[in-house]
Protein backbone atom coordinates (compact mmCIF):
# COMPACT_ATOMS: atom_id res chain seq x y z
CA UNK A 1 0.00 0.00 0.00
CA UNK A 2 2.83 2.24 0.95
CA UNK A 3 4.58 1.42 -2.33
CA UNK A 4 1.38 2.10 -4.23
CA UNK A 5 1.01 5.40 -2.43
CA UNK A 6 4.65 6.32 -3.22
CA UNK A 7 4.07 5.39 -6.86
CA UNK A 8 0.91 7.49 -6.95
CA UNK A 9 2.52 10.48 -5.28
CA UNK A 10 5.52 10.23 -7.59
CA UNK A 11 3.13 10.23 -10.58
CA UNK A 12 1.21 13.10 -9.10
CA UNK A 13 4.32 15.23 -8.54
CA UNK A 14 5.46 14.45 -12.07
CA UNK A 15 2.09 15.47 -13.42
CA UNK A 16 2.20 18.62 -11.27
CA UNK A 17 5.62 19.43 -12.63
CA UNK A 18 4.42 18.82 -16.19
CA UNK A 19 1.21 20.85 -15.90
CA UNK A 20 1.76 23.57 -13.29
CA UNK A 21 5.39 24.46 -13.69
CA UNK A 22 5.09 25.72 -17.27
CA UNK A 23 1.90 27.63 -16.49
CA UNK A 24 3.46 29.03 -13.29
CA UNK A 25 6.49 30.21 -15.19
CA UNK A 26 4.26 31.76 -17.87
CA UNK A 27 2.27 33.50 -15.13
CA UNK A 28 5.41 34.78 -13.39
CA UNK A 29 6.98 36.03 -16.61
CA UNK A 30 3.80 37.74 -17.81
CA UNK A 31 3.15 39.45 -14.46
CA UNK A 32 6.79 40.52 -14.31
CA UNK A 33 6.54 41.98 -17.79
CA UNK A 34 3.27 43.73 -16.89
CA UNK A 35 4.88 45.24 -13.79
CA UNK A 36 7.83 46.40 -15.86
CA UNK A 37 5.62 48.03 -18.51
CA UNK A 38 3.47 49.61 -15.76
CA UNK A 39 6.55 51.10 -14.09
CA UNK A 40 7.93 52.44 -17.35
CA UNK A 41 4.66 53.99 -18.48
CA UNK A 42 3.65 55.56 -15.14
CA UNK A 43 4.33 59.34 -15.34
CA UNK A 44 7.00 60.55 -12.97
CA UNK A 45 5.46 62.46 -10.07
CA UNK A 46 7.10 65.77 -9.00
CA UNK A 47 9.84 64.95 -6.54
CA UNK A 48 8.94 67.10 -3.59
CA UNK A 49 5.40 68.27 -4.06
CA UNK A 50 2.86 65.64 -5.08
CA UNK A 51 -0.45 67.19 -6.12
CA UNK A 52 -3.21 67.04 -3.54
CA UNK A 53 -5.72 64.24 -3.79
CA UNK A 54 -9.41 65.04 -4.22
CA UNK A 55 -10.12 63.64 -0.73
CA UNK A 56 -8.28 66.29 1.20
CA UNK A 57 -9.24 69.23 -1.04
CA UNK A 58 -9.61 72.62 0.62
CA UNK A 59 -7.91 71.26 3.73
CA UNK A 60 -5.77 74.39 3.94
CA UNK A 61 -8.88 76.51 4.36
CA UNK A 62 -11.02 77.01 7.40
CA UNK A 63 -14.60 75.72 7.33
CA UNK A 64 -15.57 78.51 9.75
CA UNK A 65 -14.81 82.01 8.63
CA UNK A 66 -13.55 84.59 9.34
CA UNK A 67 -10.78 82.62 11.01
CA UNK A 68 -8.90 85.69 12.27
CA UNK A 69 -9.87 87.63 15.37
CA UNK A 70 -9.67 91.06 13.66
CA UNK A 71 -12.33 90.22 11.11
CA UNK A 72 -14.41 88.39 13.73
CA UNK A 73 -14.43 91.55 15.88
CA UNK A 74 -15.27 93.73 12.90
CA UNK A 75 -18.08 91.41 11.84
CA UNK A 76 -19.65 91.57 15.30
CA UNK A 77 -19.40 95.38 15.26
CA UNK A 78 -21.00 95.60 11.81
CA UNK A 79 -23.88 93.44 13.01
CA UNK A 80 -24.30 95.35 16.27
CA UNK A 81 -24.45 98.66 14.41
CA UNK A 82 -26.88 97.07 11.92
CA UNK A 83 -24.53 97.99 9.09
CA UNK A 84 -24.74 94.34 8.09
CA UNK A 85 -28.36 93.26 8.27
CA UNK A 86 -29.10 89.62 9.22
CA UNK A 87 -31.09 89.05 6.01
CA UNK A 88 -28.26 90.41 3.84
CA UNK A 89 -25.72 88.26 5.64
CA UNK A 90 -27.91 85.21 5.12
CA UNK A 91 -28.40 86.00 1.44
CA UNK A 92 -24.67 86.51 0.93
CA UNK A 93 -23.94 83.21 2.62
CA UNK A 94 -26.61 81.35 0.64
CA UNK A 95 -25.41 82.70 -2.73
CA UNK A 96 -21.79 82.16 -1.78
CA UNK A 97 -22.24 78.51 -0.86
CA UNK A 98 -24.18 77.73 -4.04
CA UNK A 99 -21.67 79.55 -6.27
CA UNK A 100 -18.50 78.20 -4.69
CA UNK A 101 -19.90 74.69 -4.75
CA UNK A 102 -20.58 74.95 -8.48
CA UNK A 103 -17.25 76.56 -9.40
CA UNK A 104 -15.24 74.55 -6.85
CA UNK A 105 -13.91 77.66 -5.11
CA UNK A 106 -12.98 77.41 -1.42
CA UNK A 107 -15.92 79.27 0.24
CA UNK A 108 -13.71 80.93 2.84
CA UNK A 109 -11.56 82.54 0.12
CA UNK A 110 -14.53 84.18 -1.59
CA UNK A 111 -16.13 85.27 1.70
CA UNK A 112 -12.89 86.79 2.98
CA UNK A 113 -12.23 88.48 -0.36
CA UNK A 114 -15.67 90.13 -0.31
CA UNK A 115 -15.22 91.13 3.33
CA UNK A 116 -11.84 92.67 2.53
CA UNK A 117 -13.22 94.51 -0.52
CA UNK A 118 -16.44 95.96 0.90
CA UNK A 119 -17.01 94.75 4.49
CA UNK A 120 -20.00 92.91 2.95
CA UNK A 121 -21.76 96.18 2.12
CA UNK A 122 -23.51 95.27 -1.13
CA UNK A 123 -24.46 98.92 -1.68
CA UNK A 124 -20.87 100.18 -1.27
CA UNK A 125 -20.34 103.18 -3.58
CA UNK A 126 -24.00 103.52 -4.63
CA UNK A 127 -24.18 107.15 -3.58
CA UNK A 128 -20.78 108.21 -4.79
CA UNK A 129 -19.17 108.49 -8.18
CA UNK A 130 -16.51 105.93 -7.26
CA UNK A 131 -15.08 103.90 -10.10
CA UNK A 132 -15.51 100.62 -8.20
CA UNK A 133 -18.68 99.46 -6.56
CA UNK A 134 -20.56 96.82 -4.64
CA UNK A 135 -19.59 93.68 -2.73
CA UNK A 136 -16.58 92.79 -4.88
CA UNK A 137 -15.64 96.38 -5.86
CA UNK A 138 -16.21 95.85 -9.57
CA UNK A 139 -14.77 98.29 -12.08
CA UNK A 140 -16.11 98.94 -15.59
CA UNK A 141 -13.54 96.51 -16.99
CA UNK A 142 -14.57 93.76 -14.58
CA UNK A 143 -18.12 94.26 -15.88
CA UNK A 144 -16.83 94.11 -19.46
CA UNK A 145 -15.23 90.72 -18.81
CA UNK A 146 -18.45 89.30 -17.33
CA UNK A 147 -20.67 90.83 -20.01
CA UNK A 148 -18.64 90.13 -23.14
CA UNK A 149 -16.03 87.50 -22.33
CA UNK A 150 -17.85 85.19 -19.97
CA UNK A 151 -16.85 82.00 -21.75
CA UNK A 152 -13.22 82.90 -22.38
CA UNK A 153 -12.00 80.99 -19.34
CA UNK A 154 -14.61 78.39 -18.41
CA UNK A 155 -17.91 77.18 -19.89
CA UNK A 156 -19.12 76.74 -16.31
CA UNK A 157 -19.50 80.50 -16.00
CA UNK A 158 -22.50 80.79 -18.29
CA UNK A 159 -24.04 77.61 -16.89
CA UNK A 160 -23.79 79.14 -13.42
CA UNK A 161 -25.74 82.22 -14.53
CA UNK A 162 -28.52 80.02 -15.96
CA UNK A 163 -28.52 77.83 -12.89
CA UNK A 164 -28.71 80.75 -10.47
CA UNK A 165 -31.06 83.10 -12.30
CA UNK A 166 -32.84 80.82 -14.75
CA UNK A 167 -31.71 83.05 -17.64
CA UNK A 168 -28.83 85.13 -18.93
CA UNK A 169 -29.07 88.34 -16.88
CA UNK A 170 -26.34 90.21 -18.74
CA UNK A 171 -25.39 92.98 -19.23
CA UNK A 172 -24.66 93.35 -15.55
CA UNK A 173 -24.02 96.92 -14.39
CA UNK A 174 -23.88 98.99 -11.22
CA UNK A 175 -27.49 100.12 -11.59
CA UNK A 176 -27.89 102.88 -9.07
CA UNK A 177 -31.52 103.54 -9.93
CA UNK A 178 -32.57 99.90 -9.90
CA UNK A 179 -30.29 98.21 -7.35
CA UNK A 180 -32.50 95.17 -6.79
CA UNK A 181 -32.75 94.19 -10.46
CA UNK A 182 -31.05 90.82 -11.16
CA UNK A 183 -28.86 92.67 -13.70
CA UNK A 184 -27.65 95.08 -11.03
CA UNK A 185 -24.36 94.44 -9.29
CA UNK A 186 -25.92 95.97 -6.14
CA UNK A 187 -28.19 92.93 -5.94
CA UNK A 188 -26.56 90.36 -3.63
CA UNK A 189 -26.88 87.13 -5.70
CA UNK A 190 -25.65 88.97 -8.81
CA UNK A 191 -22.67 90.48 -7.00
CA UNK A 192 -21.67 87.19 -5.37
CA UNK A 193 -22.00 85.25 -8.64
CA UNK A 194 -20.13 87.84 -10.75
CA UNK A 195 -17.34 88.20 -8.20
CA UNK A 196 -16.96 84.42 -7.97
CA UNK A 197 -16.73 84.20 -11.77
CA UNK A 198 -14.13 86.98 -11.88
CA UNK A 199 -12.07 85.21 -9.19
CA UNK A 200 -12.47 81.89 -10.98
CA UNK A 201 -11.20 83.50 -14.20
CA UNK A 202 -8.07 84.72 -12.43
CA UNK A 203 -7.49 81.16 -11.17
CA UNK A 204 -7.92 79.74 -14.66
CA UNK A 205 -5.55 82.32 -16.13
CA UNK A 206 -2.80 81.48 -13.64
CA UNK A 207 -3.31 77.72 -13.69
CA UNK A 208 -3.22 77.63 -17.49
CA UNK A 209 0.17 79.35 -17.52
CA UNK A 210 1.58 76.82 -15.05
CA UNK A 211 -0.05 73.85 -16.78
CA UNK A 212 1.43 74.88 -20.13
CA UNK A 213 4.88 74.63 -18.58
CA UNK A 214 4.04 71.47 -16.60
CA UNK A 215 4.83 73.19 -13.32
CA UNK A 216 3.33 71.42 -10.31
CA UNK A 217 1.39 73.58 -7.86
CA UNK A 218 -0.85 73.28 -4.85
CA UNK A 219 -4.34 74.31 -6.07
CA UNK A 220 -5.19 75.76 -2.66
CA UNK A 221 -2.18 78.08 -2.71
CA UNK A 222 -3.08 79.00 -6.28
CA UNK A 223 -6.44 80.25 -4.96
CA UNK A 224 -4.48 82.68 -2.79
CA UNK A 225 -2.61 83.88 -5.88
CA UNK A 226 -5.97 84.24 -7.64
CA UNK A 227 -7.18 86.43 -4.76
CA UNK A 228 -4.05 88.55 -5.19
CA UNK A 229 -4.75 88.82 -8.92
CA UNK A 230 -8.33 89.88 -8.14
CA UNK A 231 -6.96 92.81 -6.16
CA UNK A 232 -3.88 93.88 -8.15
CA UNK A 233 -4.19 92.06 -11.45
CA UNK A 234 -2.61 88.90 -12.77
CA UNK A 235 0.36 90.97 -13.88
CA UNK A 236 1.46 91.60 -10.29
CA UNK A 237 1.34 87.87 -9.56
CA UNK A 238 3.24 86.93 -12.73
CA UNK A 239 5.85 89.60 -12.09
CA UNK A 240 6.26 88.21 -8.57
CA UNK A 241 6.67 84.69 -10.00
CA UNK A 242 9.30 85.98 -12.45
CA UNK A 243 11.21 87.70 -9.63
CA UNK A 244 11.16 84.67 -7.32
CA UNK A 245 12.13 82.33 -10.15
CA UNK A 246 14.98 84.54 -11.25
CA UNK A 247 16.35 85.58 -7.87
CA UNK A 248 15.78 82.43 -5.83
CA UNK A 249 15.87 79.63 -8.41
CA UNK A 250 13.53 76.87 -9.56
CA UNK A 251 13.50 74.91 -6.31
CA UNK A 252 12.41 77.89 -4.21
CA UNK A 253 9.90 78.87 -6.86
CA UNK A 254 8.33 75.41 -6.66
CA UNK A 255 8.26 75.78 -2.89
CA UNK A 256 6.49 79.12 -3.32
CA UNK A 257 3.72 77.41 -5.29
CA UNK A 258 3.40 74.44 -2.98
CA UNK A 259 4.40 75.24 0.58
CA UNK A 260 2.04 77.53 2.49
CA UNK A 261 4.64 78.58 5.08
CA UNK A 262 7.03 79.66 2.35
CA UNK A 263 4.21 81.44 0.51
CA UNK A 264 3.22 83.31 3.68
CA UNK A 265 6.77 84.40 4.50
CA UNK A 266 7.42 85.57 0.95
CA UNK A 267 4.21 87.58 0.78
CA UNK A 268 5.10 89.29 4.05
CA UNK A 269 8.44 90.34 2.60
CA UNK A 270 7.63 93.82 1.33
CA UNK A 271 11.01 94.23 -0.39
CA UNK A 272 10.41 91.30 -2.78
CA UNK A 273 6.89 92.56 -3.54
CA UNK A 274 8.22 96.05 -4.23
CA UNK A 275 11.02 94.65 -6.42
CA UNK A 276 8.40 92.83 -8.51
CA UNK A 277 6.03 95.75 -8.86
CA UNK A 278 8.83 98.20 -9.69
CA UNK A 279 9.18 96.25 -12.93
CA UNK A 280 5.65 97.41 -13.80
CA UNK A 281 5.19 100.84 -12.25
CA UNK A 282 7.53 103.59 -11.16
CA UNK A 283 8.53 103.86 -7.50
CA UNK A 284 5.78 106.30 -6.55
CA UNK A 285 3.13 103.75 -7.50
CA UNK A 286 4.97 100.47 -6.97
CA UNK A 287 5.68 101.07 -3.27
CA UNK A 288 2.08 101.84 -2.17
CA UNK A 289 0.71 99.12 -4.49
CA UNK A 290 3.11 96.56 -2.97
CA UNK A 291 2.07 97.61 0.52
CA UNK A 292 -1.60 97.39 -0.40
CA UNK A 293 -1.15 93.97 -1.96
CA UNK A 294 0.76 92.69 1.09
CA UNK A 295 -1.96 93.83 3.50
CA UNK A 296 -4.75 92.54 1.25
CA UNK A 297 -3.15 89.09 0.95
CA UNK A 298 -2.26 88.90 4.63
CA UNK A 299 -5.84 89.75 5.63
CA UNK A 300 -7.41 87.24 3.26
CA UNK A 301 -4.95 84.52 4.27
CA UNK A 302 -5.52 85.01 7.98
CA UNK A 303 -9.29 85.13 7.41
CA UNK A 304 -9.53 82.10 5.12
CA UNK A 305 -6.75 79.73 6.19
CA UNK A 306 -7.47 77.23 8.94
CA UNK A 307 -6.27 78.62 12.31
CA UNK A 308 -4.38 75.41 13.00
CA UNK A 309 -2.11 76.19 10.06
CA UNK A 310 -1.58 79.76 11.15
CA UNK A 311 -0.40 79.10 14.69
CA UNK A 312 3.25 78.66 15.46
CA UNK A 313 2.37 76.33 18.34
CA UNK A 314 2.22 72.57 18.08
CA UNK A 315 -1.11 70.76 17.80
CA UNK A 316 -0.85 69.43 21.37
CA UNK A 317 -0.52 72.97 22.70
CA UNK A 318 -3.63 74.25 20.93
CA UNK A 319 -5.66 71.11 21.61
CA UNK A 320 -8.37 71.09 24.32
Amino acid at each position, binding site marked *: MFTAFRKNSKGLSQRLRQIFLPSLSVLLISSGLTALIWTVLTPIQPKNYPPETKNDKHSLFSTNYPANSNFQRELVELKNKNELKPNDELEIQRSLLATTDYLDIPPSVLWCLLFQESRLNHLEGIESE*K*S*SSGLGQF*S*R*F*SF*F*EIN*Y*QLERYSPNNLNLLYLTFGRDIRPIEAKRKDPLSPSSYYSIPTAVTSSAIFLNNRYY*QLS*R*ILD*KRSIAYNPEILWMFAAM*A*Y*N*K*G*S*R*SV*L*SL*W*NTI*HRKRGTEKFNQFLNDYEYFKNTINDSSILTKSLI*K*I*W*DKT*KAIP*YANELRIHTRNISSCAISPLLQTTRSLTEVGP
Partner: protein
Amino acid sequence: MKLQNLNLKQLHLFISTPQGVTILFLFVSAFAFTLLYRSSTLSQFKGQPLSTSYLTLLKSVNEGGYSKFQQDKSELKKYISTILNDPRNEDEETHASNIALYFFPELLSDSNFEKSAALELWAPFEIAIEKSPRTPEARMLFEIMKSNIWNYENPKMKNAGLSPHAQETLKVYHELSSP
Protein backbone atom coordinates in the same frame (compact mmCIF):
# COMPACT_ATOMS: atom_id res chain seq x y z
CA MET B 1 54.21 112.45 -2.51
CA LYS B 2 57.82 111.73 -3.49
CA LEU B 3 56.82 108.33 -4.84
CA GLN B 4 54.00 109.85 -6.87
CA ASN B 5 56.37 112.42 -8.37
CA LEU B 6 58.87 109.71 -9.15
CA ASN B 7 56.23 107.58 -10.90
CA LEU B 8 54.96 110.47 -12.97
CA LYS B 9 58.52 111.41 -13.87
CA GLN B 10 59.33 107.84 -14.90
CA LEU B 11 56.11 107.60 -16.91
CA HIS B 12 56.89 110.86 -18.67
CA LEU B 13 60.40 109.62 -19.49
CA PHE B 14 59.03 106.31 -20.77
CA ILE B 15 56.42 107.97 -23.00
CA SER B 16 59.18 110.16 -24.52
CA THR B 17 61.01 107.06 -25.77
CA PRO B 18 60.13 105.52 -29.20
CA GLN B 19 58.97 102.29 -27.51
CA GLY B 20 56.67 104.27 -25.20
CA VAL B 21 55.16 106.20 -28.07
CA THR B 22 54.53 102.95 -29.97
CA ILE B 23 52.86 101.25 -26.99
CA LEU B 24 50.71 104.31 -26.29
CA PHE B 25 49.70 104.48 -29.96
CA LEU B 26 48.75 100.79 -29.98
CA PHE B 27 46.76 101.11 -26.75
CA VAL B 28 44.79 104.17 -27.93
CA SER B 29 44.15 102.56 -31.34
CA ALA B 30 42.87 99.35 -29.76
CA PHE B 31 40.59 101.31 -27.43
CA ALA B 32 39.23 103.44 -30.28
CA PHE B 33 38.72 100.39 -32.47
CA THR B 34 36.77 98.58 -29.72
CA LEU B 35 34.56 101.63 -29.22
CA LEU B 36 33.97 101.91 -32.96
CA TYR B 37 33.09 98.23 -33.29
CA ARG B 38 30.69 98.30 -30.34
CA SER B 39 28.89 101.40 -31.58
CA SER B 40 28.69 100.11 -35.18
CA THR B 41 26.82 96.96 -34.11
CA LEU B 42 24.22 99.03 -32.34
CA SER B 43 24.33 102.22 -34.38
CA GLN B 44 21.41 101.34 -36.63
CA PHE B 45 19.21 100.93 -33.54
CA LYS B 46 20.81 103.12 -30.95
CA GLY B 47 20.74 106.37 -32.90
CA GLN B 48 18.18 107.67 -30.47
CA PRO B 49 17.33 106.92 -26.83
CA LEU B 50 15.09 103.92 -26.26
CA SER B 51 12.24 105.92 -24.78
CA THR B 52 12.10 108.18 -27.85
CA SER B 53 11.70 105.31 -30.32
CA TYR B 54 9.05 103.78 -28.11
CA LEU B 55 7.10 106.96 -27.63
CA THR B 56 7.24 107.97 -31.28
CA LEU B 57 5.04 105.11 -32.45
CA LEU B 58 1.94 107.15 -31.74
CA LYS B 59 3.46 110.05 -33.70
CA SER B 60 4.21 107.64 -36.56
CA VAL B 61 0.52 106.67 -36.73
CA ASN B 62 -0.70 110.25 -36.47
CA GLU B 63 1.71 111.87 -38.91
CA GLY B 64 3.01 109.13 -41.20
CA GLY B 65 -0.01 106.86 -41.35
CA TYR B 66 -0.10 103.10 -41.25
CA SER B 67 2.94 102.41 -43.45
CA LYS B 68 5.17 104.71 -41.38
CA PHE B 69 3.89 102.99 -38.23
CA GLN B 70 4.76 99.55 -39.66
CA GLN B 71 8.24 100.74 -40.64
CA ASP B 72 8.94 102.31 -37.24
CA LYS B 73 7.50 99.35 -35.38
CA SER B 74 9.76 97.02 -37.33
CA GLU B 75 12.81 99.18 -36.47
CA LEU B 76 11.77 99.21 -32.83
CA LYS B 77 11.46 95.42 -32.86
CA LYS B 78 15.04 95.02 -34.09
CA TYR B 79 16.23 97.43 -31.43
CA ILE B 80 14.34 95.69 -28.61
CA SER B 81 15.59 92.32 -29.79
CA THR B 82 19.19 93.58 -29.61
CA ILE B 83 18.68 94.99 -26.14
CA LEU B 84 17.04 91.82 -24.85
CA ASN B 85 19.88 89.70 -26.21
CA ASP B 86 22.56 91.83 -24.60
CA PRO B 87 21.19 94.22 -21.97
CA ARG B 88 23.69 96.61 -20.40
CA ASN B 89 21.95 96.58 -17.03
CA GLU B 90 18.77 95.46 -15.27
CA ASP B 91 16.95 98.76 -15.83
CA GLU B 92 17.50 98.60 -19.56
CA GLU B 93 16.35 94.99 -19.63
CA THR B 94 13.20 95.79 -17.65
CA HIS B 95 12.35 98.69 -19.95
CA ALA B 96 12.92 96.61 -23.09
CA SER B 97 10.93 93.70 -21.62
CA ASN B 98 8.01 96.02 -20.92
CA ILE B 99 8.00 97.29 -24.51
CA ALA B 100 8.30 93.71 -25.79
CA LEU B 101 5.46 92.59 -23.53
CA TYR B 102 2.99 94.97 -25.14
CA PHE B 103 4.34 95.19 -28.70
CA PHE B 104 6.49 92.12 -29.39
CA PRO B 105 5.69 89.38 -26.86
CA GLU B 106 7.27 86.78 -29.14
CA LEU B 107 10.67 88.32 -28.30
CA LEU B 108 10.29 87.52 -24.60
CA SER B 109 12.06 84.48 -23.25
CA ASP B 110 9.90 81.37 -22.77
CA SER B 111 10.81 81.43 -19.10
CA ASN B 112 8.99 84.75 -18.69
CA PHE B 113 5.57 84.02 -17.16
CA GLU B 114 4.07 87.14 -18.74
CA LYS B 115 4.68 85.89 -22.29
CA SER B 116 1.72 83.46 -22.30
CA ALA B 117 -0.63 86.15 -20.98
CA ALA B 118 0.48 88.63 -23.65
CA LEU B 119 0.14 86.10 -26.45
CA GLU B 120 -3.40 85.40 -25.35
CA LEU B 121 -4.78 88.67 -24.06
CA TRP B 122 -3.67 91.35 -26.53
CA ALA B 123 -1.24 90.14 -29.20
CA PRO B 124 -3.98 88.50 -31.35
CA PHE B 125 -6.07 91.69 -31.13
CA GLU B 126 -3.11 93.86 -32.13
CA ILE B 127 -2.46 91.66 -35.17
CA ALA B 128 -6.14 91.78 -36.15
CA ILE B 129 -6.32 95.59 -35.72
CA GLU B 130 -3.19 96.02 -37.85
CA LYS B 131 -4.72 93.83 -40.56
CA SER B 132 -7.79 96.02 -40.88
CA PRO B 133 -6.96 99.40 -39.31
CA ARG B 134 -9.49 102.19 -38.89
CA THR B 135 -12.58 99.99 -39.25
CA PRO B 136 -15.54 99.41 -36.90
CA GLU B 137 -14.29 95.80 -36.42
CA ALA B 138 -10.90 97.13 -35.37
CA ARG B 139 -12.60 99.39 -32.82
CA MET B 140 -14.55 96.45 -31.41
CA LEU B 141 -11.35 94.42 -31.07
CA PHE B 142 -9.66 97.37 -29.42
CA GLU B 143 -12.37 97.50 -26.74
CA ILE B 144 -11.74 93.84 -25.86
CA MET B 145 -7.99 94.38 -25.85
CA LYS B 146 -8.35 97.44 -23.61
CA SER B 147 -10.48 95.53 -21.12
CA ASN B 148 -7.99 92.65 -21.09
CA ILE B 149 -5.07 94.99 -20.41
CA TRP B 150 -6.92 96.85 -17.65
CA ASN B 151 -7.96 93.62 -15.94
CA TYR B 152 -4.42 92.27 -16.38
CA GLU B 153 -2.85 95.23 -14.57
CA ASN B 154 -5.93 96.10 -12.47
CA PRO B 155 -4.62 99.35 -11.04
CA LYS B 156 -6.67 101.91 -9.14
CA MET B 157 -8.78 103.48 -11.83
CA LYS B 158 -9.01 106.89 -10.20
CA ASN B 159 -5.25 107.34 -10.37
CA ALA B 160 -5.04 106.39 -14.04
CA GLY B 161 -2.58 103.88 -12.69
CA LEU B 162 -1.86 101.76 -15.75
CA SER B 163 1.84 101.21 -16.39
CA PRO B 164 3.32 103.74 -18.86
CA HIS B 165 3.90 100.96 -21.42
CA ALA B 166 0.28 99.78 -21.24
CA GLN B 167 -0.94 103.37 -21.53
CA GLU B 168 1.18 104.00 -24.62
CA THR B 169 0.05 100.73 -26.24
CA LEU B 170 -3.58 101.63 -25.71
CA LYS B 171 -3.01 105.12 -27.18
CA VAL B 172 -1.40 103.65 -30.32
CA TYR B 173 -4.09 101.02 -30.93
CA HIS B 174 -6.87 103.43 -30.06
CA GLU B 175 -5.57 105.63 -32.86
CA LEU B 176 -5.09 102.70 -35.25
CA SER B 177 -8.62 101.45 -34.62
CA SER B 178 -10.35 104.83 -34.96
CA PRO B 179 -12.71 104.50 -37.95
